[in-house]
């Protein structure tokens, strides 16, 4: 009898031991989000740069990235006689040696679909905003590093480069997109996305995310930027790229811009014409209609009361891409009063210089500058009665 009882207890004890070892304890916040003291310890082996210091120290005009003893940056965009100025560059950052650190707070959110496999970090130094784009190979990266998250990045082994003149933390990548328009002139080495495993290795979170600590640069006159269009301005303006801005007192004009010319967007018709159908017409009066597979962001014009224009940039993959531009829409959906709503547009400031085959076209025009909202709620407008703009999605049912 004793023997049988012992067997029974043996079962019980073994079972319990097994079940207990199967449980895992939850990680503690303090182990995942670093304090300033831990940041100090981490950076003790090297130097913590500000973003601008980092750019000054490691980013060059032409880029030092050498592959097989050949520079492969895209000289096609260099202006004749100014071969020290490139739109695309890569500079490698030493892998070994002292740690090279930067820190910043994430200002972008890819949930809305307007940012894809990239983010922007912000660092406020002496009251001035500094910003840097980071390119990594993972969608929904804000799931790991949300807006407001401050992070410490060990840059050793990564690269700093410019893609269409936008500075970004990256790795060298050979652009072999043979499907692209003018592909013959675009292939070559360019800043590429950092593999997410590598990026995660480089990044430590500093504290919990806090959006309230983000700083917005308030703009009432967009010419502050759009007036900077010549070569020397562009070099200076690189440090403005990626800033988080609030453009105040503007309204959508219902226009897009083509090479600086403002043109009215087309509205959908219930007739056989497909004009204005955002799935087929890149000029439709929504934020981000189709690009017919090309994939560049679509620009829509906003303007101040004084009709100073600026571009709001939206990807066709944004969740709100097919929302009508803010306007009073007539009940038969045939007329749109764009002046009815005005207010602020919040987003990431930028310019983009990847403009075709002409080496002459090298400076910026006003419509190369843009603000990219993260989400539809970054369009904060109201009508004259104070009623907030309610976004309306394009639908063919309105035209039945």
């Amino acid at each position, binding site marked *: 009898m004793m023997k049988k009882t012992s067997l029974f207890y043996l079962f019980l004890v073994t*079972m319990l031991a097994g079940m207990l*070892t199967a449980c895992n304890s939850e990680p503690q916040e303090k182990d995942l989000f670093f304090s300033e003291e831990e940041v100090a310890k981490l950076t003790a082996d090297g130097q913590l740069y500000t973003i601008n210091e980092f750019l000054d120290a490691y980013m060059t005009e032409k880029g030092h990235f050498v*592959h097989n003893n050949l520079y492969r940056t895209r000289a096609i965009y260099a202006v004749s006689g100014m071969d020290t100025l490139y739109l695309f560059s890569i500079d490698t950052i030493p892998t070994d040696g002292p740690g090279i650190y930067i820190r910043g707070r994430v200002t972008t959110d890819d949930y809305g679909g307007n940012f894809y496999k990239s983010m922007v970090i912000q660092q406020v130094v002496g009251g001035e905003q500094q910003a840097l784009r980071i390119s990594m190979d993972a969608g929904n990266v804000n799931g790991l590093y949300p807006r407001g998250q401050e992070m410490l990045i060990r840059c050793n082994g990564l690269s700093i480069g410019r893609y269409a003149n936008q500075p970004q933390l990256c790795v060298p990548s050979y652009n072999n997109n043979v*499907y692209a328009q003018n592909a013959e002139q675009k292939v070559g080495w360019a800043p*590429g996305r950092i593999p997410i*495993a590598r990026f995660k290795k480089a990044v430590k979170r500093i504290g919990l995310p806090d959006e309230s600590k983000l700083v917005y640069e308030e703009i009432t006159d967009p010419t502050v930027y759009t007036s900077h269009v010549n070569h020397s301005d562009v070099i200076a303006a690189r440090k403005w790229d990626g800033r988080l801005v609030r453009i105040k007192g503007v309204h959508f004009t219902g226009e897009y811009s083509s090479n600086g010319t403002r043109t009215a967007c087309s509205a959908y018709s219930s007739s056989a014409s497909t004009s204005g159908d955002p799935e087929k017409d890149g000029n439709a009066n929504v934020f981000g209609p189709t690009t017919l597979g090309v994939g560049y962001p679509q620009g829509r014009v906003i303007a101040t009361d004084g009709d100073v224009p600026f571009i709001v940039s939206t990807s066709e993959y944004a969740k709100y891409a097919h929302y009508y531009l803010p306007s009073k829409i007539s009940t038969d959906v045939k007329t749109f009063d764009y002046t009815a709503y005005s207010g602020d547009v919040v987003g990431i400031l930028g310019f983009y210089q990847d403009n075709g085959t002409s080496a002459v076209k090298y400076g910026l025009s006003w419509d190369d500058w843009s603000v990219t909202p993260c989400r539809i709620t970054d369009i904060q407008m109201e009508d004259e009665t104070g009623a907030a703009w309610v976004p309306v999605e394009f639908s063919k*049912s309105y035209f039945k």
Partner: protein
Amino acid sequence: MKKLFILMGVMVMSLAISAQTTLKGVILDEETGQPVIGATVTLANQDIATTTNQAGEFAFLYLEAMDEELVIESDGYNPMIELVSLKKDQSTQLNPISLQPDLSARHQQEVVLNLAEQEMNDDEGLSQDQNASLSSSTDIFNSLTSFAWSSARYRNRGYNNDDEVTYIEGLNFNSAERGQFNFSAMGGVNDASRYKESVNPLEATNFTFGGIGKATNYLMGASHYAHGWKVGAAGTNRNYKAAVRASYSSGPLANGWTFMGQLAFRFGPYTGAKGQIGEGVDYYSMGYFFSAEKVWGTRHRLSLITFGSPTHRGQSGAVTQEVYNLTNVYNYNKYGCSWGYNNYNPYWGYQNGKMRNSRIVKSFDPTIVASYNFKIDENQQLHAALGMHHSWYSNSAIQFYNAVDPRPDYYRNLPSFMWDGQLDKSGAYIQKDLNDKSLGQGFYNYYGEYVGPSVDAHSYNELYNLWTSRDDATTQIDWDALYAANYANNAINPNGCAKYIQERRHNDISEISATANYQNTQFDHLKMTAGVELKQSVGSHYKTIDDLLGGNQWIDIDPFAERDIKELASNIGLTQAQIELVKQNDINNPYKVIRDNERFGYDYKLLMSNAKLWYQNEWTWHDIDLYYAIEATYSSMQRTSSMLNGRAYYLSMLHESMAEYYLGHNGFQILGGERYNKYIGWAHHFIDPGFKAGFNYKINGRNHIKFNALAMTQAPMARDAYWSPRVHDRVITTIYTHDRAKNLTDYFAASEKIVGGDLTYEFTYPIVRGRITGFYTRFWNGTELNGYYDDEARTFVNQAMTGIDRRHCGIEAALSVKLGTYFTLSGAASVGDYSYTDNAFVVTTAENGMALGETKSGAVFELVDRVLIKGLKVANGPQLNSSLKLSFFHPKMWFADVTISYFDWNWLDYAPARRMESLYTGTCYDSEGNQVSINGGYYKIYTSRDVSIDARELDAEGNVVTDQYGTPKLIAPYNILADQESIVSSKIWNRFLIDCSFGKLIYFKDRTSLSINLSVNNITNNTDFKTGGYQQARLPRSTRQGYTEGNSTINSNVWKFPAKYYYAWGTNMYFNVQYKF
């Protein structure tokens, strides 16, 4: 006068009886001394057979006097031949004959059961092949193959699991929904599966009509088990590491009751060892088995049986060869030969420094069976049984919302993704840019592989080294990062949806089944059997949250629908309010907040009813046995849901004429505000007939020729019947046709038709015995449902395949030769051709209702196509299997054997999405037959924006070259996109597996005994043996700019989504010790 006749009659009868030549005996278990019930006893020369009764007794009457061979066979025992001399008109009473237990087979059966259980990975349709060949050892072929071939995932005749039927005490235990038996229900309690009757395919059975595959009936009555205790322990290096078990049987008690019980516990904590068998897997299982049997006199027997095995087990998953190579890189010698293990498992990671698996199966199948046998008289017998069974089966997985894909082996996380787009049309690295400038030299990675000059060596090697060094956060799930993401999300969005959770996907099944079986032998030479089987099943499918991983809550909306909402809205013009509804998994609970054990995602039931009537006549004469059997099966299925899914609502508007098939009977009322607890779908009813017949021609007592044939139809399984059961009620087209049948063809439009036959020659001599069987089976109109993420549509699509025709033909043979007293040499082989005989039909739909193409008249939501599978092989294990076994058995109960097996002709399962006819022709059709153009989406490979290569092979005249089945051939290297891949090792010696086992049974003076067994599988540590896997459905595509339709094309990186494989374990062992007292 009358009395005189009676008296004379009695005297004549007495004389006749006394003048008979008879033989009687009793068969006992040598180990326990208990009678062996149901043993087959055959007189080889006179070709007469009988079975032993409850007391182990047998008797033959009216024999011819001669020297005879008495052949005794019983499942779980070594077959035995006794020589007896039968004297004319004498009654011979043999001394008790002791059968030696086949300890090796018993031991091996436990190993095979464990293998079958662990392969029940039925989550997401990616089930690994399950080997369930737990066959009777009385059949020489099965006894040789069931263990030796299990490692290679051999399937009997290449059939599917659901072609084999499993019964317990006469009750059907194949799942009505999944079609197969869940062996984990008996996990660990090896006594529950010890006694069974197994019937080879197509042969007559006593307990059911059967099917095209084998039929097994487990007998669990307590009287099968010898009185006493058994305690045992086992150790293994497989998924679990150790097991302990104890059982007790009362033996027959004076009051007619017999009781038996067994408890078992198997456990395997995380080992912490990377690269070892069972990497990242933990395992805990507690099994119980109780049986009580009451006998009243000689005519009534009642058995009450219950068993179950609550189990928690981590899983491992298939990965691509690149991942195996990366994680096994240090296990290659200088000659490039792998000597390590292909045991990488992507499903686990470290949390707080401790291992944690993300895919945990929890299963518990408590089962109760009451079985009653009534011997009405000498010629009539009735068996009835009632069973209840509830299966809790669930599997966990990480779910994520608007967050980075957490799978470490996701293709974008691998070094190979860095050279995506860097290959030329021949698959080589590009050496020059499009301006024809040289890119310089490439480099060699750590492993010595060449990487082209367009890949940055530094970045590549950094990632490569993270993999080859098996960096925890890179090569495994980074649990800590998932928690960090949720903690961060809590800080900025406390009421928002968690980024990551571990969800639990439930697939519970409740079944009540009943059977009655009547046997009548009142007519000479004829045994009549009639049976009825009833089963009511409810399959419950739903999700719950296992772990919020530090998140505050989960919000129950569909991320795919949310992302694609603008297209959904554009399609049919939804209002804002309607758009909000479409995103919801439950319209009645929009944005439902899930924090605890509430159900979310989907919550539906499949109600299934089955009723079977069957009748069988078996005639037995001296030279020939004949039988035939008929059956009629009624089955029905109906889906009900507790949630009204937003996509079902959307689809009901999109396809207004079919609205009720998305919303069901009362869906509109629910939408209209009326309250119902259930959303009730349509019921679908089927009646399927079956007929089989066969004969056994006895050339003499030693040589038999058998022929069996079967024809039947079989309704589709519920799992294959619905396009997207998680979302809506719409059934596949053939069932829709069946439901509205106007003629017989329509009526059987949904059912699979099966016709098969086999021819066997079997012989038994004292030294040598064997059999050879040729079989031929045709399946027509099979059904299969597949789902995958479609790169072009950028959403999850479902593909319903119908009209799947297969042919399974081949030869199986076995031979056993006794070599003196101690040794036996046996060989077995199965050579077959299991292939598809025609192309199938397929309808593809997006689960969220997105358009998949366009005609002139508008968007197309259901693409109708053919799948070019004619001539492809059925991926159900090797089609060439052979083994040679040398066995040693010493009467002092030592045994040992070594088996060398060779496997070949093994193919990977094809992906229907890669064999669509439209990929070869560029066109497919909508459901109305209108041609749908899918420009650029076919096997025309774009090497630049407007430069394409026709991947199809063309002859000198420019005509498309086809194979012998009419499928266009693709030129290399594009052929790997569509060709079915052989998974046989290129090195012939890696097609062999060698197993061995040893054992000893020690009897002590007090009749207690100790048995010790050790089996070692794959003793040469062959780690280059693929057992299965699957071709990924996803095709490599690139955006083609400037085109509104078909704007993505297949690109030249044909290696982008390679196949995923399972490998056989390297050397593995199972050691078992058992003490019986």
